[in-house]
Every structure is written in C-alpha cells, then in structure tokens.
C-alpha cells in the first residue's frame, strides 16, 4: 500500500556554472536610431563617479538553457500538485487552476496602482466585494486587504491594538500582550515588534488556555490577547467566550490568528466568539497557492469601534463608482506600499465564488472529518501517542507525539518526517507546538482523498515497524529524494556559511 517513490535527481549545477560566453537569453528592446541620435552619448548622462565600471558578474545563457535549468529544478521540488502535503497549520489544500488563469489576465497583470480610478473600476469592485465577503465570513465590520502575509497581518493587528489604546490615552500603561504557550511563533514575534512585552500563559491538560492562569496574567497592563481557535493542537477552545470576557473586563482587545480558520469556516465566526481583530490567511483557508514561501495575503478584519484605525486606503463605493479613501485621520498609516497583494485577492475571490456559502461549510466539515479519520487510525500505530484532550474530537489538524517511539527505538520525529518523504508524502510540521515533545502536526485539509490518507497511515505504520525492527533505514532517511540528508550544521557555521555564490567564491579562494 505504500508508494514507491524516487524524486528527480539531476545534480543540477548552479546557474553560474552553466552557459557560455556571449550567449543571451533575452533580447532587450533596442532604442530607435532617432532616439539614440537625439540623446547622443549616454555616457555623459551619468557622472563618472556614479557610473558602474564593471559588468555585474551575471551568467550568460541562452533561453533554452534557462528553461531547462529551471524546469529541472522544479522537478526537484514537491507541491500540492505533486501529492499529499499534511503540513500542520499551513493548510496545504489544492489550489484551483481557474484562479491562476483569472489572475493572469492582462486586466490584473497590467494595471498600475496609481491609474485614474475610472480606469480600474473592476479591480476596486473586486476588492470591495471581497472585503464584504470576508467580513460576512468572520462576523467582523470592516477589513483591510493590505497585509502581504499572515505575520504581516499580525503586525498590522498589533499596530491597531496600539492605536486603540493610544486613542484612549492608555498606551503608556498597557504594555503587555498575552499569548498561550501553544501559539504560533509569529504571535509573540509580532507583539514584540509592535513594542509590547509578551506574557505567556500555559495550556491545561486539555490543551486549552488555562483559565485560572489567564485570570492571573491579565491586569490593567494588558493590551490584548492573541489566540487561534481551534488552537494549534487542533482543539477548539470551548471556553472562548469566558476568555473574551476576562480580557475585555480588564480593557484588553482580543486578536484572532486566522491560521486555523479552515475547521470552522462558514460555521462559526470569530466575531461571534468575541474577537475584536481577525487576520485571515488567504493562502491557507481560501486556496491561493503558497509559491514556495509566498506571496500570500493576510487581510485584517476589525469591529466597528476599531474601523477608524485601519491602514489607508480603504475601498469605498458611492453608489456609482468605487474609489480609494485616503482621508482617514485616525489611521495607523501604511504597512506596505499600495493596496495589498492584488493578484492573490483575485484568486481568493474566485475561490469563494467556487465554493459559495454551502461549499465553505463543506470545506470545514470535510477537513474535520479527514482529521478525525487520521486520529482514529494513527492512534493504533505503535510508537505514536496523542497527547492532550485524548477524547476530544480534533478540528483541522492533530498533533501526535513520537516520544514512545524515541524512547523505544531512538527514532525521533525528525527521522519519521524524513522517512515519510521516501514514500512520496510531504512530512507533517515537526516539533511544533512546543508543548508537545517529538511533535508531528498533521493537517490533511478537505482536499485530501481517502486513498491518500490510507497511504499516509500505511506509510507511518511501516515506519513504525522499521523503527522497531530495522531503525537504521529510518535514521538514515531520506533515501529517495533529490538529495540525501543535508548537513544543516555546516550550513550555519561561520567558516562554511555560503549565502551567495559570491560569498562561496570569496571564501574558497581564501
């Protein structure tokens, strides 16, 4: 039942090591002769001391070589289009191709953000409508579409928390943001970037926020609490309303990390749980591709009370035309240039159209169904256990611990993850959340097939058997990927730290 897999292995040289002198990959338009004549000697246009003396040491390749090089490299990569990608908290669902087609329209690619508003009515309409849909889905009042990623949304949200307390004259004393110990790393990092002190509250035996500890942590210094629900263990914070009350009672704001929305989209709304600020990851819940690390989009939704602080501009509609509203005196300003990752917004818009209200509910339900199927089956495999809230249903993801396996066989979660790659399956998220030892965080999403999940289960069962009978094959994994296990320590050692080809050439000549 497990797959036989061998990833492409091209031993592809670096782009600097191929090509040949004099080759060109693209002809840049040459100026008209009359233009040249009229302008004259361009050397004179730039003062001597500002002229580049030596050509940049870029390679010289034909178009053919460039295409073959990057096609080969793509074959040494693994995406959702390749197979099962149960990377927990990343919601690696299928990315519909129609969305790519629409985002490649000239009317998307070739419009400039400073065009006269009359010439970009379609783009503004799309943003306006998407904003309203996102508000409806989350139960929030308004959204900004500006943040470029989830963490960028968090950064924006933290700035909104600042703006709110500053407006109320309380910023000086409210210098703390609370995060649970199971939070995504971006939460404390975003809070710190916004100038706040981070207070960590522990989880209870069910993996949820310890209410007594939260009560002890809040005070008149609390600016806000950042929380994801369901949490990173895949467990719904049942006492969310009580949590909201505790934070609101001391004057703090409640921030929703939307990384885990997939489990409840269309069914339960963060706004109805009491959240004041919500971020969404369009590249997670709303099916836009992750592109090997980005671009994503991390819109931020807020309550009516916080609307005035949103970044400029917002898209408005006066009954006849859409326009950008820059005149917002209480706004926190900008968090990046222009209006957000527009082509990602187009894809998310098409995604919501494809699913509709009913479909989004199905997304949530099947993602939860798939997760609980995995939980049921994986519990039976020797060496793995499900810590926290053992009898609670999971939502979008589940977190298993390979601690028993490590204790019995020395095979760690890392080894299990690497061995999974040998069966043509992307590994789960490892060693996160931090409150689970030897964590394997598994998120199948609603786009997994039962057959894929069965293969995954069988692969883990086989790895468990191997660990107990022939651990070496697991410890030395992966075997079937483009390269075998890489030396990460070498990569980080100052003497062998090679971050660019330039750095490598310099160090090897020394």
């Amino acid at each position, binding site marked *: 039942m497990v797959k036989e897999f061998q990833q492409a292995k091209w031993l592809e040289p670096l782009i600097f090591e191929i090509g040949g002198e004099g080759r060109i*990959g693209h002809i*840049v338009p040459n*100026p008209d002769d009359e233009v040249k004549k*009229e302008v004259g000697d*361009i050397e004179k246009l730039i003062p001597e*001391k500002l002229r*580049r003396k030596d*050509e*940049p040491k*870029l*390679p010289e*390749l034909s178009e053919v070589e460039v295409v073959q090089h990057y096609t080969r490299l793509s074959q040494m*990569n*693994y*995406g959702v*289009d390749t197979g099962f990608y149960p990377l927990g908290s990343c919601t690696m669902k299928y990315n519909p191709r*129609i969305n790519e087609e629409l985002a490649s329209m000239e009317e998307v690619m070739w419009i400039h*953000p400073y065009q006269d508003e009359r*010439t970009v009515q379609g783009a503004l*309409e799309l943003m306006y409508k998407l904003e309203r*849909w996102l508000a409806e889905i989350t*139960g929030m009042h308004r959204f900004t579409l500006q943040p470029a990623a989830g963490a960028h949304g*968090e950064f924006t949200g933290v*700035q909104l928390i*600042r703006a709110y307390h500053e407006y109320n004259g309380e910023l000086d004393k409210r210098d703390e943001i609370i995060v649970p110990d199971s939070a995504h790393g*971006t939460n*404390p*990092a975003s809070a*710190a*970037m916004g100038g706040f002190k981070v207070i960590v509250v522990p989880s209870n035996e069910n993996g949820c926020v310890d209410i007594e500890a939260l009560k002890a942590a809040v005070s008149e210094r609390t600016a806000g609490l950042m929380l994801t629900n369901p949490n990173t263990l895949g467990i719904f914070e049942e006492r969310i309303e009580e949590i909201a009350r505790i934070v609101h009672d001391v004057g703090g704001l409640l921030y929703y990390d939307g990384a885990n929305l997939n489990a409840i989209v*269309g*069914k339960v709304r963060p706004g109805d749980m009491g959240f004041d600020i919500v971020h969404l990851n369009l*590249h997670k819940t709303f*099916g836009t591709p*992750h*592109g*090997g*690390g*980005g671009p994503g989009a991390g819109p931020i939704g807020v309550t009516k009370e916080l609307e005035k602080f949103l970044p400029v501009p917002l898209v408005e509609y006066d009954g006849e035309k859409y326009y950008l509203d820059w005149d917002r005196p209480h706004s926190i300003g900008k*968090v*990046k*240039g222009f209006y957000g990752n*527009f082509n990602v917004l187009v894809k998310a818009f098409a995604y919501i159209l*494809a699913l*509709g209200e009913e*479909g989004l509910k*199905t997304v949530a339900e099947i993602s*939860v169904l798939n997760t609980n199927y995995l939980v049921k089956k994986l519990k039976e495999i020797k060496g793995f256990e499900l810590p926290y809230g053992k009898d609670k249903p999971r939502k979008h993801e589940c977190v298993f611990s390979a601690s028993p396996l490590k204790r019995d066989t020395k095979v760690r979660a890392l080894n299990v993850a690497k061995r999974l*790659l040998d069966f043509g399956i992307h590994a789960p*998220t490892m060693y996160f959340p931090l409150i689970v030892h030897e964590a394997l965080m598994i998120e199948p999403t609603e786009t997994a*097939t039962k057959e894929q999940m069965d293969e995954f289960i069988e692969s883990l069962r086989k790895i468990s058997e191997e660990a107990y009978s022939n651990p070496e094959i697991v410890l030395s994994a992966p075997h079937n990927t*483009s390269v*075998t*296990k*890489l030396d990460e320590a*070498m*990569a980080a050692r100052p003497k062998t730290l*090679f*971050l660019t080809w330039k*750095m490598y050439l310099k160090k090897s000549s020394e």
Partner: protein
Amino acid sequence: MEKDAHPYIPNSPRKIRNTLLKEIGVNDISELYSDVPERLFYKGKLKLPKVHSEYEIFKQVRRMLKKNRTVLDMCTFLGAGVWPHYIPAVIKALISRGEFLTSYTPYQAEISQGMLQTLFEYQSLMAELLEMPVVNASMYDWASALGEAALMTNRLTKKKVFLVPKIIHPERFSTLKTYAESAGIKIVQVNFNRDTGQLDLNDLDSKFNEFRGEVAGVYIENPSYLGFLETQVDEVSDIAHRNESLLVVGVDPTSLGVIRPPGDYDADIVVGEGQPLGNPLNFGGPLLGIFATKDDMKFIRQMPGRIIGMTKSEDGKYRGFVMTLQTREQHIRRERATSNICSNEALCAVAAAIYLSLLGKKGIVELGKTILYNSHYAMKKLNAIDGVKAPYFKAPHFKEFLVTFYREGISVETVHEKLLEKGIHGGKNVKREFPEFGESMLLCVTEIHTKEDIDELVSAIKEIVEGGR
C-alpha cells in the same frame, strides 16, 4: 450529480463521507463539533454567493475585471514604486509549474531542493547586481524592507534616530514610520537642494549634531523617488560612517547595469524593489522586497527573513541547499526573533532569478542603456515645449523625472484629464506631496515605451499646453 460533491473536495460524496464516519465511530459530522458551544454556530444565512461552476466563475470574474483599462490599452507613463517592464514569456511558464507554485516554504530541504537552489540563485544573482555579499530570500516590498532595515540599524547600534531624505515616496515613508515608531525609533527628515534635489549635506551634518550619538542609520535612495540620481553617495557614506552610523541604500535594480552598485560605496544594508525584474504591476502587489547586507556575522545575525545557504549532504557526497540561520527567526526565537516575517514573496524572487538569468551580464546593461535613452529622449522633447520643464531638477536622471507645467491656467489635473481623453495615461500627480514643485507630474519611461509612444505623449502635451494659451 450529487448535490454535496465538489471538485475540490474528493471526500465530499455521501458514500465516502459515510465510510469515514463509520471508521471514526460517529454517526454525523456534527458530533465532531460537539465541543463547540451550540450558541456559537452561525444560525442565519451568510450573505455569500452560491456554488458556481468553473465557467460561471470564469465569466463573472472576467466581466468584472474587463472594466479595467490596462497599460497595454492606453499608453501609460506611471511608475512611482511599481514600474512597467516587459516580462519574458519564459517566466510565466516556469513559475506556473505546480512543483514551484503549490509548494510551501521549504522546511523539508531534501524534497525541496528545486525551490531552495532557485532561491539561493536569486540571492546570488542579486548579490552580483548589488555588489553585496549577503542577500535574503525576499521581503514583502521595498517599503516594508525599509522598515525592517531601520529596525536592524537600531538592533546593531542601539541608537534611536533614523535619518531619511525629505524627498521620499510617501507610502514608503508612512510604512517606515509604522515599523519604526512602535519600536521607539524616531524618523527625522533631511533637507534637499531646491535646484538639484540632492541631499543637503550641511543639513545632514546639522542633524548629526542635533542628535549627537543617537543616529542609528542614514537612508538614501538611488534613483530617488522623483527620479534624479543622488550623486553624493561617497560623501553621505563617509558622513554616516564617521559618525558611527550605518548607511542604508534603497535601489531600483534595473538601474544597476549602468549605475554604481551600493556595495561599491560601502552600504551596510541595501533595500529595494525587485518587481521590475520579471514581475507584473498587479495593481501594486505582490511585490518583491530586496534586503541585503555585508559579510559580517554581526550584521548577518541581525538580518530579518529567510536565508538560504549552500551545504553538503551529511555523507559529504552532494551539494545541497537549506534554510539557514533559522535561530534568528520567529518559529525558533519567538518574541526575541529579528522579525516576525514568515511567508515572504518567494515566487516573485523565482521570477527575478529567471529574469536576471535570461538577461545576463550584457542584457542588464542593455536594459539600463535603453531606459536611459528612452527617458532622456522624452525629457528632451518635453523640455522643448514652451511652458514645460523636464526634468524639474538639475541632476542626472534614470527612468523617472518630474515634468512641470508653468503656463498660466495649465494644471496637472488638466493635463492628466486631457491626456486620458486622448487615450494616454500621464504620470503621478505629486502636487499634494510636494506643493513646492508647482504643477508637477512624475513620469516614468522604460524599455517598453517606443519612440512612437513618447512622440504621442509629447505632441499631446504640446497640444494641451499650447491650447491653454
């Protein structure tokens, strides 16, 4: 067709659902939500669309977006932070490959060598262009990269003031303030020479006096927001370093085939916008934030963002690539991380790597020269019109410049409106930002503008201005 089945949800059909439910040992999916308080479920009907077929989506979204007029439909001279450049067809073909497009951040290095090597190549190609040995795998855009650079100068120097020119993109400036002020960094602007736009070095000196021992970094842009080149790069670098501050330089990489790279004048941190290297306008996003620094562990350890490093397989046999120095990052260091950035703009960096590979060492120089020719042709022709001054500043320029209308009754708005009537989109109106430059518009001319395009613009402006006589 089953009502519940959806093409994106393989386990949606009733029979498969039931199989899974039975295996789990529950009767209904609602049991899997039994821990969610009943009152939290949304009971009403959400104001959302119905389920659409692919054709309906195709038709509906196209109809909406077709209301846009593109820069291909009307000759457009807008830049100001996002610039129109041609994108070789190869790029779209390669970045649309599912293995790249649908992959996540390459946490599992061995199965992600394609993306890792490509990003290492992006870092390396950019390093050659900038003459900076260390480049990260991307930031969101130039503006946020500048914000991060200010934070990094503060971490490195423990000083709290960051100097920037008064002539700076307003959106970049606003973003910088958002990033810096919550970290307790004060942004101070330095004056410019009214005729040349160049940084006023006397004012720079006086700012150093005013904030003695407190200046973390000095930021300059080349080319500047208003298109002129800052020629005093060595002087500024010298002043910054003499005062134990860092030099941060912002660049448009298309200029670097012909203009001196910032590594050459001792920049400590370089930021910039990589969009013009193979990435579309996309109404302003996604963009590609460039971030580079020196080969100095003190600096490297303070860098934000993902960095790809070259290494070997543990058996020493093969070369390979991994995300490295991750102990700087949020998923390890949490609140003590150098930045919160997680997702970046990797696929835009892939496009930039392919673009630079295609152009190569000759092509990037050719690109710079073509832009210089075309933009200067436009300036010369426009300046010849009575009542028009181009460029406004007496300084060398690259691809953008201010054009000023000084005939009575001719405003930027009139020119814009009348150009649009003729099917031409003029430049950005900068009157609100810089009223001191009068009726001025920021024009951008690149390699995609032909002589005919420019002539059409020039004769249209001539007609508008002279018609207003």
